[in-house]
C-alpha cells in the first residue's frame, strides 16, 4: 500500500466571480504515474499553480511528503523535492543546454554563495548535468545555446531540468505539447522508463500519452474532479464520456 | 505653535498635493495605458511654466497666456510622442528610462538657450492676488486657494471621463488589451497620442500653476518629478485614486514636516540638535514614508489590477 506523497484537500481558488478551483481533492501515491486531464478552461493551470506554489489557494490544504506545504513558496517546495516543467517552454535561453541543467543541479548541491570559483568547471555540477542530458537524449547538444535548440529539444530540456533536481515528485505540464509524432513517441517512451522509479503527475491533452503512461487518471472539469481511477475505470465512466472523452474515445 | 498656522500649512500641503496629483495622474495614465516610463514628464511641467510666462508677456492677458501655454504644451507633448516616443512602446523599461533621460537633458538645455539660467519673474494679475479669510484670523493667499480648487476640479473631471465616458472606457480597455481594442477598429496610435497629449496638458497645467509659487527655472521639472515618483510608489501605479491619495499624503507630510518638524523635535531632543537634525529629517521625510509603505504594502496603497 503506497503512501500518498501528494495530497490536496478541498482546494478552492476564485478570481473575483470566477471559481477556477472548486473543492478539488487529489491523492497521488509514491511511485505512481498520475495523469490529470480535462477540457480547456477546466482550471488545470490554476490547479497546477496551487500545487507548485505559485498560487495560494483560498481554502484547502496541500500535503507533500507528509508535510503541510500550503504556505510554502515555489522555491521552498522545489527544495523539498517537488519539480515541475512548464507548458510553455521556460528555459534559460541565453545559457547552453548543459548550463541549464547544471543550474538545476546547483540548486540542490549545497549553497550558492560561492563567489570565486567558476561554476562551469565544478565536476560536482557538470557531471550529473551531463548524465541527465544523456538520459533524455540531449547528450550531443550539451554545448548548444538553449535558444538554438529545436522546439522538441527544448521540451526535452525542460524535463531534464526537472529531473536534475533529483525530485521526489515530477509535475509535467503538457510535456509533449507542440511536438511532432516521432518526438512525442520518444518522449513517451522516455517517460515510461521513469515509471515506478519516480512519482509523476502528468497534465496532458495527448490521449495516447495519457493512456500509455498513466496508472491513475483524474478528470478535471470546471474546477472539479469529476472522476478519478484507473484508465479503464475512467474510460467507462459516463460522466467523463459526456464531459470530455465523448469527442475522442 | 498655533492652530491657525497649522491650518495654513495644511492648506499649503493640500496645494502641493494637488500639483503633485496633476503630474501623477498624467504619468500613471501614460504608464498604465502605454506601459511607458516617461522621465521627461517633468520637462513638460517646465515647458508649461515657461510657455505660459512667455505667452502672458506676449498677449498681456493672464487668461490668454494660460490658454496659449496649455495649448503649446499639448502640442509639444504630442510632437515628442510622435517623434521620439513611438518606437519606445515596444522597448523595455530600461530603454525608455534612458531615452527619456536624454530628452530631459535636451529640454533643460534648450530652455537655457532660449531663456537663460536664472529664474523667470512671474507676475499674477490683480484679480488673483489678495487673500481669503477662510477661518477667523486666518488669511490665506487667494491664488493658492484657486490652485487647490482647479486641481480638485480637474481631478473630478478626470474621474468622470475615465469611469463614465466612452473615451474613458476605451482608455481602460486599451490598458488591459491593446490588440483587442485595435482589432475593434479603434485607431490605437491616435488614442495613444491623445492620451499622451492629455498627460502633457496635465503636466503643463501643473507647471503653469506652480510657476508663481515656486521658481520658474531650468531643472524645475526634475525636482518635482522625483516627488511624483514617491507619490506613485505610495499610491500604487495605474490608478487615479492612488495618485490622488498618494499626492495628498506626500504633499501634506512634506509641507507639515518642513514647517513643524524642527520645533517639534526641539521639544523632544535639545534645540541645538533639532537645529541640525530638523531640516535634514524634514527633507527626507517623504522618502522615509515611502520606505515604510513599501515595507508593509510593496505594491502601494491602491494598486490597479486592471484599470481603476
Amino acid at each position: 500500500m503506497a503512501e500518498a506523497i501528494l495530497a490536496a484537500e478541498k482546494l478552492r481558488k476564485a478570481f473575483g466571480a470566477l471559481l477556477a478551483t472548486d473543492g478539488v481533492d487529489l491523492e497521488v501515491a509514491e511511485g505512481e504515474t498520475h495523469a490529470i486531464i480535462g477540457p480547456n478552461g477546466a482550471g488545470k493551470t490554476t490547479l497546477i499553480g496551487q500545487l507548485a506554489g505559485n498560487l495560494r489557494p483560498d481554502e484547502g490544504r496541500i500535503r507533500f511528503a507528509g508535510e503541510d506545504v500550503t504556505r510554502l513558496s515555489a522555491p521552498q517546495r522545489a527544495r523539498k523535492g517537488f519539480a515541475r516543467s512548464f507548458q510553455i517552454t521556460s528555459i534559460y535561453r541565453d545559457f547552453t543546454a548543459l548550463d541549464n541543467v547544471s543550474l538545476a543541479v546547483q540548486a540542490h548541491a549545497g549553497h550558492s554563495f560561492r563567489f570565486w570559483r567558476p561554476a562551469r568547471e565544478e565536476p560536482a555540477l557538470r557531471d550529473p548535468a551531463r548524465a541527465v542530458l544523456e538520459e533524455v537524449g540531449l547528450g550531443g547538444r550539451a554545448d548548444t545555446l538553449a535558444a538554438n535548440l529545436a522546439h522538441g529539444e527544448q521540451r526535452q530540456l525542460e524535463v531534464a531540468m526537472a529531473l536534475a533536481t533529483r525530485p521526489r515528485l515530477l509535475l509535467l505540464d503538457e510535456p509533449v505539447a507542440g511536438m511532432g509524432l516521432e518526438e512525442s513517441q520518444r518522449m513517451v517512451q522516455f517517460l515510461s522508463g521513469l515509471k515506478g522509479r519516480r512519482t509523476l503527475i502528468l497534465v496532458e491533452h495527448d490521449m495516447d500519452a495519457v493512456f500509455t503512461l498513466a496508472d491513475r487518471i483524474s478528470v478535471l472539469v470546471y474546477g472539479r474532479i469529476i472522476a478519478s481511477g484507473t484508465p479503464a475505470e475512467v474510460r467507462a465512466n459516463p460522466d467523463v464520456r459526456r464531459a470530455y472523452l465523448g469527442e475522442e474515445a | 505653535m498655533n492652530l491657525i498656522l497649522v491650518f495654513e500649512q495644511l492648506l499649503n500641503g493640500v496645494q502641493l498635493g494637488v500639483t503633485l496629483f496633476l503630474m501623477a495622474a498624467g504619468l500613471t495614465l501614460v504608464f498604465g495605458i502605454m506601459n511607458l516610463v516617461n522621465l521627461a514628464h517633468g520637462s513638460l511641467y517646465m515647458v508649461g511654466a515657461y510657455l505660459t510666462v512667455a505667452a502672458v508677456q506676449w498677449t498681456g492677458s493672464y487668461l490668454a497666456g494660460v490658454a496659449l501655454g496649455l495649448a503649446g504644451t499639448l502640442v509639444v507633448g504630442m510632437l515628442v510622442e510622435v517623434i521620439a516616443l513611438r518606437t519606445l512602446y515596444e522597448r523595455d523599461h530600461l530603454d525608455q528610462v534612458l531615452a527619456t533621460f536624454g530628452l530631459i537633458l535636451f529640454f533643460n538645455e534648450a530652455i537655457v538657450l532660449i531663456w537663460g539660467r536664472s529664474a523667470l519673474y512671474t507676475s499674477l494679475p490683480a484679480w488673483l492676488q489678495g487673500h481669503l479669510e477662510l477661518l477667523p484670523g486666518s488669511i490665506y493667499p487667494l491664488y493658492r486657494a484657486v490652485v487647490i480648487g482647479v486641481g480638485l476640479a480637474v481631478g473630478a473631471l478626470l474621474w468622470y471621463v475615465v469611469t463614465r465616458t466612452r473615451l474613458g472606457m476605451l482608455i481602460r480597455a486599451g490598458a488591459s488589451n491593446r490588440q483587442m481594442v485595435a482589432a475593434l477598429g479603434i485607431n490605437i496610435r491616435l488614442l495613444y497620442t491623445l492620451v499622451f497629449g492629455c498627460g502633457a496638458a496635465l503636466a503643463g497645467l501643473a507647471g503653469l500653476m506652480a510657476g508663481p509659487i515656486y521658481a520658474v527655472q531650468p531643472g524645475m521639472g526634475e525636482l518635482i518629478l522625483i516627488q511624483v515618483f514617491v507619490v506613485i510608489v505610495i499610491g500604487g501605479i495605474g490608478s487615479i485614486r492612488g495618485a490622488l491619495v498618494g499626492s495628498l499624503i506626500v504633499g501634506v507630510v512634506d509641507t507639515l514636516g518642513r514647517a513643524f518638524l524642527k520645533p517639534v523635535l526641539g521639544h523632544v531632543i535639545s534645540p541645538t540638535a533639532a537645529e541640525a537634525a530638523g531640516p535634514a529629517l524634514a527633507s527626507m521625510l517623504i522618502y522615509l514614508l515611502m520606505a515604510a509603505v513599501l515595507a508593509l504594502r510593496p505594491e502601494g496603497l491602491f494598486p490597479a489590477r486592471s484599470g481603476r
Partner: protein
Amino acid sequence: MSARTLVLAAGVLLLLAVPPLAQLIGQPYYIDLVRRVMVFAIAAASLNLILGYGGLVSFGHAAYLGVGGYAVGILAFYGHHNGWLQWAVAIAASALVALVIGSISVRTRGIYFIMITLAFAQMLYFLGISLEEFGGDDGMRLKVKSQFSGLVDLDNPVAFYYVVLVLLLAVITFVHRLVNSRFGRVLRAAKSNEARSRAIGYSPYPYQLVAFVISGALCGLAGALLANHTAYITPAFMDWTRSGEIMFMVILGGIGTAAGPALGAFALLLVEDVLSGWTEHWQVILGPLLVLSVLFFKRGLAGLLPGEKRDG
C-alpha cells in the same frame, strides 16, 4: 590567445602608457582626464554587476559615490587622514547603505524598482545638502588626500593614476570572476528567467540583495577615489543626473560584458569633454545623441569587439 584577449590587452597597455605619453607631449592634463574616466569606469563596473548581469535597473547608483566620498571627507574633516581607514570606511558605509536601501527595493520589480532607487538616492542628496557642518550645498574641500604611510603618495598625479588603474583592473577582474561563480550564475539566471529559477529552487531575493550590496560597496570605493581626484566633495556627487550618466556608461559599453563599463565610461566622458569644448550648451546635443544611441545602438561598444561577446 583569442583576438578578443589581444584587443583587451592592447587597451590595458594603452592605459599604462598614458602618463609617460602625456608627459612626452607636454600635456599632463590627459593624466587627469583619463584618471577621472577610470574612476567612473569603476562606478560603471559596479553598476554593471546588478544592472547588466542582474537585470536590476538601479537609477540611484550615484548615491554610493556620495557615501564613499563623504566618508573620506568627513574623516579628513576630523583629522583622520589614514587612507586605509578612510577607504575601508567608505566601502563599509556604502555596503551598509546599499543593504538598507536594497532590502526595501529589491523586493519590488520593474518600474517600481527604478523609481524607488531614484527616490532613495535623492533622499541622500537632500541629506548631503542639509549637512551644514560639512558645507551643505557647497560641499567641502579635501585639503589632505588619503594618506598611505609612504606606500604611495596620492598628491603625485602619476602615482595616483596608476593606483586607480590597478583598482580598475582589480574591480573588473573581481566582477568577472563573480559572475561566473555559483553566485553569479544564480544572479544571471534570475535575470534570464525568474519563474524557471523559482521552479528549480532558487529564491532570487537573497542573491539580488547580496549583489546589490557588493555593487554599492564597489561604487563607494569609486566615491573615495573621486573625492581624492577632485579634492572636493559636494552633494552633486549624488545628483540623479549622475546616476543617469553611470547607467548610460553601462549601456553604451554593452551590458553584461566585462569590458563594457570601461568602454562606456571612456566613450561618454570623452564625448562630453569634446562637446563641452564646442559649446557651453553641450547637453542640448548630448541629449538627442543619447536618445539615438538607445534607439539604434543596442549592443553597445563591446559588441564591436571581435570574438565571443558573452561571459561564462
